[in-house]
């Protein structure tokens, strides 16, 4: 692919105006944006759109909050019976390591 200049992507082929990212496109590329895998040209369009759109800024912030909250999901305790049976298995292993 031929290298593109720093400004080529900014232009619509038709009317030489800034090709804005629509909200509907933004919500579909937001994961690529957060993953850092969005192509540079789209990243610039993404951020240019954010600068002018409160709805999309809120949307992005919601995604960030969601990811943080997901990280605070706690585990789920195992049943006491499972724990007991694991400890019994441990003792068998300790006493005869080859024959669990």
């Amino acid at each position, binding site marked *: 692919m031929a290298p593109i200049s720093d400004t080529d992507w900014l232009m619509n082929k038709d009317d030489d105006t800034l090709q804005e990212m629509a909200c509907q496109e933004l919500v579909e590329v937001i994961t690529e944006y957060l*993953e850092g895998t969005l192509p540079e040209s789209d990243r610039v369009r993404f951020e240019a759109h954010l600068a002018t759109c409160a709805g999309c800024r809120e949307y992005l912030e919601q995604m960030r909050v*969601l990811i943080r909250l997901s990280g605070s999901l*706690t585990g789920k*305790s195992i049943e006491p019976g499972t724990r007991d049976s694991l400890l019994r298995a441990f003792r068998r292993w300790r006493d005869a390591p080859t024959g*669990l």
Partner: protein
Amino acid sequence: MAVIAAKHTSEAELIDRLRRGDEAAFTWLVDTYSPSLKRLALAFVSVDAVAEEVVQETWLAVLTGIGRFEGRSSVKTWLFKILTNRAKTRGAREKRTVPFSELEPEDRDVPAVSPDRFLPPDHPNFPGHWSTPPHPWSGVAEQAAVQRETIEVLRRGLESLPRSQRVVVTLRDVHGWPAHEVCAALALSEANQRVLLHRGRSRLRSTLEIYFAEDM
């Protein structure tokens, strides 16, 4: 019985004690890591009793494999890898499961946000822009008064995601695995991993939006 204080016990020491048959070390590991392991197992198998079995099999594999643990990864990473392998095998045995490398219809081509939230493509000024912008909740979701309930809504939402999305979101966002490790563990391409993460997160965001819209 010796008391193990987590912060003062290195993992190498813990493993060493486990190898020597120290029950307190094993108990500490089981009590510390089983809840996370079960959360992860539930992402794969969805039936609680089966998840218990997968966690149990993981610990038995730890005992039989402890001699092979070389300490190149953390204990937690090692445990999660064993569990992931067990859970995958288990999940594959359950009917209706497809390999993670193949996206199911529910994983693709579903918009992140319903099209009726946007202006139509032929709108003269703002095609594809919000007609109904997101209900704002990002500022309140983490406030102490609501966070516990929000997390409960999120947990239920996560459990009701399609399996592939649930596993990827659990590994990435709940347990914080980097993308390349998820791809390797599930034999997923980077692109498909991202699609699953995107669909899962988008759905969860929508779940929270509905919750906050009803609540406020």
